[in-house]
């Protein structure tokens, strides 16, 4: 087992200010960035704040930016860096910092609450839901989300424009709308809620310019743009801009 000393720069501070602090720290084979942050806590900076839980890429807690890339620290191997490379670790930029590497991600919970929940179908009790696998597999892909909020953090719509936070739900919650809109049993339509139109009108789907950074940073490799955001945009087009779809729905209605 070999070890070496790495140069780390870790952002330390809080909402009042802060900056990058230098550390020389031991690195061993097989370690990830979160291991090094823990070593810093244990040996050099006992008050260094970092949020973490599972260390297995499943809880979504240790989101940060490593050399400028939004990443899970527990899933970023030290072996991807050269031994003489400085590794810079900063908190997610899009959210208010609480302290050091810990940010306040409550923006995301606010946005989550704005998305209308699953509407149960009439006449089918809980526990009696039956769905064909091919009908539900699209929604299931989105259920892999671990809510690390790296997609929300990297999306330039809110990362570079704080003022858009009010109007824009972000990729994670537009994906949630897509998940429900594609769900075979969701009965929102029967209650008068068109989720695709609502995504555009109420949740800022139009702000998305499909530059795919959300997909690039997703640690669960969910195809957010191709499978959620673009299909949602297409569904909005169905509702608002496609004359053939409009004509087809008129003819069908007449035939009923």
């Amino acid at each position: 087992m070999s070890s070496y000393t790495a140069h780390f720069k870790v952002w330390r501070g809080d909402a009042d200010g802060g900056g990058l602090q230098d550390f020389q720290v031991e690195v061993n084979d097989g370690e990830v960035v979160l291991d090094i942050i823990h070593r810093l806590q244990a040996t050099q900076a006992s008050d260094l704040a970092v949020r973490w839980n599972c260390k297995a890429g499943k809880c979504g807690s240790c989101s940060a930016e490593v050399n400028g890339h939004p990443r899970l620290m527990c899933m970023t191997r030290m072996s991807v860096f050269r031994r003489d490379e400085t590794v810079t670790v900063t908190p997610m930029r899009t959210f208010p910092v609480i302290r050091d590497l810990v940010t306040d991600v409550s923006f995301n919970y606010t946005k989550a609450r704005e998305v209308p929940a699953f509407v149960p179908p009439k006449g089918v009790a809980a526990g009696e839901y039956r769905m064909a696998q091919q009908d539900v597999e699209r929604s299931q892909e989105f259920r892999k989300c671990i809510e690390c909020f790296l997609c929300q953090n990297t999306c330039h719509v809110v990362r570079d424009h704080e003022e858009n936070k009010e109007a824009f739900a972000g990729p994670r919650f537009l994906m949630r709308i897509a998940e429900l809109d594609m769900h075979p049993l969701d009965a929102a339509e029967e209650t008068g809620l068109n989720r695709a139109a609502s995504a555009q009108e109420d949740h800022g789907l139009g702000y998305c310019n499909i530059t795919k950074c959300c997909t690039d940073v997703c640690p669960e490799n969910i195809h957010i743009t191709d499978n959620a955001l673009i299909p949602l945009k297409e569904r909005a087009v169905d509702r608002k801009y496609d004359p053939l779809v409009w004509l087809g729905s008129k003819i069908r209605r007449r035939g009923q």
Partner: protein
Amino acid sequence: MATGTTPTTPVTEASGGRAHGRAAIAARHLRTDRWWVPPLVTALGLGAFIAYATWRAFANSDYYAAPYVSPFYSPCLASNCTSMKGGADWPLFGDWWGLSPALLVLVFPLGFRLTCYYYRKAYYRGIWWSPPACAVAEPHAKYTGETRFPLILQNVHRYFFYLALIVAGILTYDAVLGFRDPSGDWGHMGLGTVVLLVNIALIWAYTVSCHSCRHVIGGKLRHFSKHPVRYRLWNRVGALTARHMLLAWSSLISVGVADLYVYLVASGAFDDPRFF
């Protein structure tokens, strides 16, 4: 600090607090990789094609060398076209159109590609820098995305997809005509036939891999189990859609190469090698 703690070693790159309580990091980004290479390559690639296509579209010459017609000039919708034996030579616009006939046609593939979800990503990143790369701050003070004019017009992609199907059909007809010899008899094949065939295969692959196509084919359905044929097609199109970027570039290059080939043959730069 609000927590009452102080770093044990000096802070080396300090700056003031940022608005909205974000971490005080002044740099636009902290990426250490060559993040600027993809947007640069994209901008150069698109720029080169636009320059070439503009020259050829306005040239109004050397676009037909029997039996080959440049994809830039087919269908030919004005009376001022070179006569093409059995080709898509339909002067719908009559003789009042005095400019290059390519301008009448290129608006359709141009609109299709301009509003394409992949090309949008490409030029938003490579040309408009919105953003130039992931986690690299964009230079614009304000951003409204595709919520208002003119970018809300990106939603017309669906219409251009329908039109692109027609254009692809006509180019397929042109490619089939490549099996005729210059005098119009069937049973010919030259290098130009291969060039047109490869081009039309890539154009169809790009057109069918379009996200709008994927949606129309089956993406709009809620219950795939009730539409097994469309579900199967949706899966097939989805496999192509995953390669949409590759197909976008390869079909862009192939259409340029096909036009260049016809130009070289029509201008007499070289003779089309004939296989049979």
